[in-house]
């Protein structure tokens, strides 16, 4: 699994940044996502959507990445919203209780709408 590619696609929707993640997110690929998120936070981009539409697998280490910056972005009025999860990926988030900590939404539009509120 670790050999399988993991890629991140950057998109900008106004002041909102969207990271479209693809492939397998595990202990080996998690640092990539962590640095991508870290760069955004450092640049002061605190409204972030992570789009899961093409993510096939997430491991426990992958889940931990979202915890690293969530406090920082929320302190400045931003948020990390998680969008378009496949059912299998959602189950993993759900068991861990993530829906109680993060906003997990249908798609980017829903996330943008939530940011607008």
């Amino acid at each position: 699994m670790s050999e399988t590619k993991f890629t991140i696609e950057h998109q900008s929707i106004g002041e909102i940044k969207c990271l479209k993640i693809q492939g397998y997110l595990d202990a080996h690929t998690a640092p990539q996502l962590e640095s991508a998120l870290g760069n955004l936070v450092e640049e002061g981009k605190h409204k972030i959507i992570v789009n899961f539409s093409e993510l096939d697998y997430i491991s426990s280490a992958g889940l931990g990445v979202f915890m690293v910056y969530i406090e920082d972005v929320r302190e400045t009025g931003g948020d990390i919203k998680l969008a378009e999860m496949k059912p299998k990926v959602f189950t993993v988030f759900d068991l861990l209780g993530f829906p109680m900590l993060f906003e997990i939404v249908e798609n980017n539009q829903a996330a943008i709408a939530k940011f607008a509120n």
Partner: protein
Amino acid sequence: MEPEIQNAQIRNNYLLFYVVAIISLCLKIVLDSIFVLADRSPASFGLISSTILAISFVTGLFIARFVQISTLILQHRAGNSGKLILDGAGRIILITLIVLLAGSLLLVIFTDNNTSYGMFESIILNIVGATFLYVAIESIFFIYFALQIRRHEKTKKFSRILAFGTLVIYVLVLLGKYAQDTNNPLAGISAFILCILLLLTIGRTKWIALLTKQEKKKLVWLSALGFFVFTFFSVQCFTESATAYSRPIEFFLSGSATIVGVSMMFCAIYTARLFFPALVALPTASAVDRRNSEVSSLTHLNKIIAETIDFDMLIENLTQRALEVSRATGAWCELYPSSGERTIASYKFINQDQIDWLYSYSAFDQLIGQTTVTTLIESFDEDKNLAPIASFPKPIARSLIIVPLYEGLSKIGALIVLNTQSFGFENDDLNVLSSFGDNISVALKNARLIRESISHERIQQEIQVARQIQDKLLPQKIPTISGYDIAPYSLPATEVGGDYYDLITLRDGKVAIFMGDVSGKGVPAAFYMAELKGVVLALAQEVRGARDFLCKINATLFGNIEKQTYITLSCVVIEPNSPKISLARAGHMPFLVKQHGGVSVVTPRGLGVGLAKPEIFDALLEEYFLDLEVGDACFLFTDGLSERQNLQDKDFGYEPILDVLRSPSAESAKTIIKEVMKSVEYHAGTCAQHDDMTCLAFIYRGNGAINQIKSLPPNDRTSVDESENV
């Protein structure tokens, strides 16, 4: 010890012959001075005894030299024969020259042309004659040595024929002399045959090519000098005049002049034979020397490359060797680390300031930066951008060679070799330096592979340590709980995971069963697992139930572990002999419960430990209370089990486990575990296990039921013990 004794014996042997020769010589001189005045007719006692003594001198010397030379040849080990021959030639030519000059001087001063001899004159003639004979023997053995030491079988055979052929000529001449036969063709013919043989034998002069330029020069001078000296000597021996060399030799031993003449002729031929190849080899000598030094430098570099994993030493050596093999006047090696500036790793005959000064020219900077293959800049003057660098009277460089160094496909450095002259380098410099570059690339690759294998080794050791820690943290023995049958199972993967299970007795006698998983893998996961175990043990005496336990664990760990790390944890609290159990779940896999004849997936709400501060965590954590009947069961597991995939990437899931719980055969905890494992192995097939698989099953046996180990049939007991030790 033995070879030393042998050597000593041989030395004693030839010393004995030297002694015989010297005694004979002394006796002869004394005898001659007594008898010379009285009588010198051919058949007189004086002349016969004098001749015998002279022959004894010659034979003694001959044998002594033969034994000595043979010993030398035996001891000699192949390799430096060229140098030995050169030294030998130098010595014999020097000796001959000295003897020739001294002999001539003595003859001119102390002898006259009369056929009668005075006592003093006889002594002089004897000494000079003996010395000349000594030189002749010495020169014959020089050629013998020179030919033997080449160790070529044919040459060795010829040289033996030559040495003893000379002896034969001598005997023939002597016989002729004493038979009063003035015209003796046999000796002349044999001498001629031997000359031809000699010319054939000394055809092998390959060793001359291997001499250094210095040695070749020496050989040219020596052989030219030798040729003249030996020719002169030889001619003198065949001439019959009062001052000619034949006179003292003939006086010493009648008939010997020929043999001395022949020996000298051989030497003249041999030196002439050496002169021409040496002369021919001279112009190419420096090129050959360079080639030799290139070969030895490359060999040396390759040796270093094979042995060195120290990169700095390699670079230092590279610079040094580059200077040795090329016509460079200075060199440096620079590296381009992936992060940061160009660094000068080593430099020779140039300093950091001079390098910086060169780089202050942007054209130079560009040139080095853009070079991708080994490049020769023959003259800075030809490029108007570089010309200013060379426009000084004493420039640092007027020409240079750039050798880019690669690791794989990325350029990681360059070797820069300078010459203060325009057109200071030639094409062969370019070739050899280019091959240096290739070798270094191989060396860099080797060094990287070694580094990688070392780090791989270290990782393996870390994993080993982490696994040992983990093993110690899991329960070594399952406590017996009256009314319950409990069996755990753990199957580690190759990579260390963070799976955790435990059974902890609380203050009120209840038992908390934990099943958990630390996020991530490897050493950090094992480390956090150890921390978790510590916290669990510390809290055991003050908690009141499953939910309370998890809340207190979160309160203790939240903020004290890394943000991205969390722990999923399930907790079941059971009471001995009681059917009432309580369940709480902190982000972990659901409980699979068999209750009242049915099975269900029980998922109380709850966040992973370490994800949220206590206010949120506690508020969201639910606790379920269940009432079990006898035979009801509960199954706890980690995602390593439910997410175990097969070759079609399909997860194992919960359903097969529920099937096991449903089946009537699930009558003991051990059987449940066994059946589930059988099922998961069947599902996974040949697909490798990536994550630890840990699970635990317990069955309520009813109030007062005997503990699980005693309740099992005997054939299952050993397997339970095994699982306890996992």
